[in-house]
């Protein structure tokens, strides 16, 4: 563990640490473009120059390993002048089209020019022109003129996905990023190149021109797209709703978590949020009698459902919970089951098409909380619940989220089952064929509209936080279940998800010792979990 000083601050770092990371540890930011901690060292932007004591000239920090006793200076006159020069070089052929560039506001050319540049431009000759608005694949758009050729995107495709779609073609100031002939940037992680592009060269085709980034708000969250539980930031546009036709969730960005997803996020997860602002969102409780669907108040709905539960023998109530529900929801439900002594409970519904999986982030289980549902004790035989309904042994069936009619189960058998139950209750965020067949439909808040935790496949419990208000009258499932519990006369003092989490921790040994505070931003492994 070499000890060195950076701008007079002593810091000890693991052997092999480069000077950008060593400085970071000392609280000193060394500006850089091509360096990325998840990629190989390219050393080509030349911005991360620092002075080493007794060295004849500044050297790049990214390719210099910290050694014992090293004295690193990041703010000498020489280093400042070099940075200023390198900034001028980066901007010589840059189109300076910030007013129409999506990156504006989060562009490292803008940030570093203001911090380290501030020279008077001297370039008065015609700039080099290159292709603009070139779609590289389904998600990524290239503006080659804005590109500073840091090669991060190329290295990402070479080193992380090993798909090698991108290269740098031509030479000198005519160099440009491009696709190899016959290729498209369509690997399952292509959106990451937009995140790591420090400038406006690679922009997100979905996000482009939606909203200026300085109008975005952000909330820490977890991707619900599969059992990995990648850490994300949810960026929402609440301040300029008219800029994106009412679309509130603007984009998802990966949030670094060393133990889960590091810097990355798959495209399926990144672009999988559209259901949140979709037209098919359920907004108010509804009741269907025959073909007639009418709105109801929550109070009416809860009273009616409590009555149904009261008059149905426990054996005639079936519950199909969802592995997309949070631990808090599932534990509230568990409380309901225990009080009513319900036994026909399950949460797994087989998908019609098996999920894809790779050896990087993507898991075949497309649910964020299967392990949580299992640990809370809801892991019954869902097919048996369906069969009980078909056999007319159920009076009431509660379905959370699932579209049973789009599952692996034969559609005719599901229709038969739904038709054979007196009261089908659907709780979920979006309408589909199964919700249309229910007698009661209760609108649930989407994950970005509420607090909660998921337990990923490795047993890591992670928090997600609200980014926007629930649409319409939608409520989190824990609250829906909580109101039902109250209506059934069960004492429930849980008015926040954290209350349910505390009860869960107290009741389920697997969660022992956890708390929201302990989970923090990066989550915690269950005490008994062994990382896969």
């Amino acid at each position, binding site marked *: 563990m070499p000890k060195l000083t950076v701008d007079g601050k002593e810091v000890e770092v693991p052997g092999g640490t480069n000077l950008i990371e060593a400085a970071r540890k000392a609280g000193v930011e060394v500006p850089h473009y091509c360096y990325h901690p998840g990629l190989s*060292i*390219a*050393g*080509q*932007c*030349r*911005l991360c*120059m620092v002075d080493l004591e007794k060295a004849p*000239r*500044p050297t790049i920090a990214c*390719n210099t390993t910290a050694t014992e006793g090293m004295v690193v200076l990041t703010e000498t006159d020489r280093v400042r*002048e*070099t940075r200023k*020069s*390198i900034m*001028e*070089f*980066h901007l*010589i*052929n840059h189109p300076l089209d910030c007013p129409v560039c999506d990156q504006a506001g989060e562009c490292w050319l803008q940030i570093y020019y203001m911090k380290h540049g501030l020279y008077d431009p*001297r*370039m008065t*000759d*015609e700039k*080099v022109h290159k292709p603009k608005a070139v779609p590289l694949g389904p998600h990524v758009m290239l503006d080659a003129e804005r590109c*500073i*050729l840091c090669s991060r995107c190329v290295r990402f495709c070479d080193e992380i996905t090993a798909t090698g779609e991108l*290269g*740098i073609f*031509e*030479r*000198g*100031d*005519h*160099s440009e990023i491009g696709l190899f002939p016959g290729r498209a940037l369509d690997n399952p992680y292509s959106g990451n190149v937009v995140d790591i592009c420090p400038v406006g060269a690679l922009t997100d085709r979905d996000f482009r021109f939606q909203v200026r980034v300085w109008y975005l708000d952000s909330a820490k969250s977890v991707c619900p797209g599969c059992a990995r539980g990648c850490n994300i930031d949810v960026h929402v546009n609440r301040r300029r709703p008219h800029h994106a036709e009412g679309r509130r969730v603007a984009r998802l960005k990966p949030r670094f978590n060393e133990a889960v997803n590091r810097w990355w996020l798959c495209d399926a997860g990144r672009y999988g949020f559209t259901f949140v602002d979709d037209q098919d969102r359920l907004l108010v409780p509804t009741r269907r009698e025959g073909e007639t669907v009418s709105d109801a108040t929550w109070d009416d709905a809860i009273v009616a459902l409590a009555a149904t539960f009261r008059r149905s023998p426990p054996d005639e109530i079936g519950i199909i919970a969802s592995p997309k529900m949070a631990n808090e929801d599932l534990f509230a439900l568990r409380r309901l089951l225990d009080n009513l002594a319900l036994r026909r409970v399950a949460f797994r519904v087989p998908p019609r098409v098996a999920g894809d999986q790779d050896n990087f982030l993507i898991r075949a289980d497309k649910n964020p909380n299967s392990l949580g549902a299992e640990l809370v004790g809801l892991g019954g035989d869902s097919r048996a619940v369906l069969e009980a309904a078909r056999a007319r042994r159920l009076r009431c069936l509660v379905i959370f989220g699932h579209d049973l009619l789009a599952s692996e189960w034969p559609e005719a058998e599901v229709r038969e089952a739904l038709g054979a139950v007196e009261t089908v209750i659907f709780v979920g965020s979006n309408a589909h064929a199964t919700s249309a067949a229910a007698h009661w439909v209760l609108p649930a808040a989407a994950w970005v509209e509420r607090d909660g935790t998921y337990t990923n496949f490795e047993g890591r419990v992670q928090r997600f936080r609200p980014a926007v208000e629930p649409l319409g009258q939608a409520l989190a499932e824990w609250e829906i279940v909580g109101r039902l519990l109250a209506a059934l006369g069960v004492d429930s003092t849980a008015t926040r998800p954290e209350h349910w989490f505390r009860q869960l921790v107290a009741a389920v040994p697997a969660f022992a010792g956890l708390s929201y505070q302990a989970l923090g931003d990066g989550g915690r492994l269950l005490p008994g979990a062994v990382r896969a």
Partner: protein
Amino acid sequence: MTAEKILTRSFERPDSHTLDGYRASGGYQAWPKAQAMEPAAIVEEVKAANLRGLGGAGFPTGTKWSFIPKNHAGPVYLVINADEGEPGTFKDRYLLERDPHALIEGMLIAARAIRSATGFVYIRGEYVEPWRRFSAAVRDAYAAGYLGRGFDIVVHRGAGAYICGEETGLISSLEGKKGWPKLKPPFPAIKGAFGAPTIVNNVETICHVPHIINRGAAWFAGLGTKTQGGTRMYSVSGRVARPGVYEESVAITLRQLIYERAGGVTGNGRLKAVVPGGSSAAILTAAEIDVTMDVDGLRNAGTMAGSAGVIVMDETVSIPEALMVVARFYAHESCGQCTPCRESTGWIYKITHRIVEGRGRRADLDTILDVARRGAGTTICAFYDGAVGPYISYIEKFRSEFEALTEAAVAAAPRRVVVSHA
């Protein structure tokens, strides 16, 4: 005095490129001697000979060889840089065409010194005839049993990028990648071609090795100066009566080379300037040519020996135009990897072009000088520093020529009317 011809001794023989011709002029006699020597003894001999790299950097060859890690278990590669691309340089072409077996014998000895079983010869793509001649010589050397018994040679043709003559750019290209120079450290002697310890030497450098083994380090060292032994081949081009390749001691002066060997300036014209070591070397004025041509002599004169490509300019040459041509070359050949070089070579070319076209501005010259100085020493390889040599020296030494153009342009430009936008 004219130095003894060593590298070029058999150039006049019509069969100098054949195995028989090479043997007849004393070839393949050093190799058996070297085989009787310990590798370390060969390295010591070359060190003692003061042989310095003749591709451009002038690094002591024996010292370079000694950087190969001792007792390295995996392969070690010897790579010959035959990507001769420095403007004004054409000596390696002659060696490949007229004495290819000298390179093969030198490689055998060098490979023994660094314990390498495989050598690569990276030949500039445009060098078709040198490639044919060298490839034929390799085939003959295999047939004669010099190659294939513990040492093999792979001939690789480049595709025409100047940067592939840069040591690590060459290695990248050899590995099948874009010819981008690599970050150092690690240096090639530790981690070079295909991740193995690698020595990259210039053709001419290695062609000297058999003679050092044959005639001894002391003899070789005695041919040159205190810090550089031997002769070297000067490519003399431009406005001289007899352009061509001249083998001379490194102790010769530039004046002797131009006036006593190359026949002086064409048509008895007046000498204006000389580039002594390929286009990347700083230019010298006519008053600065009494300088010895060894690495240290030229370094002390503020320029460099480089590849010994001597470009002679007389009074008919416009220095601003010459700089524009050089700037165009560097803008065209910058590999584009490092930002300072990629962006400013193109920018400086545009400025020089504008000046030559009569659209120069007063600030242009200081802009070029400032940009060149700011970018110098900030890049992965020496390419940009090579471009900075001419940028700065042409303007500093011939500033009045540039100013004549910019002042004329300023005088001719229509007066700007400033319109208030208020």
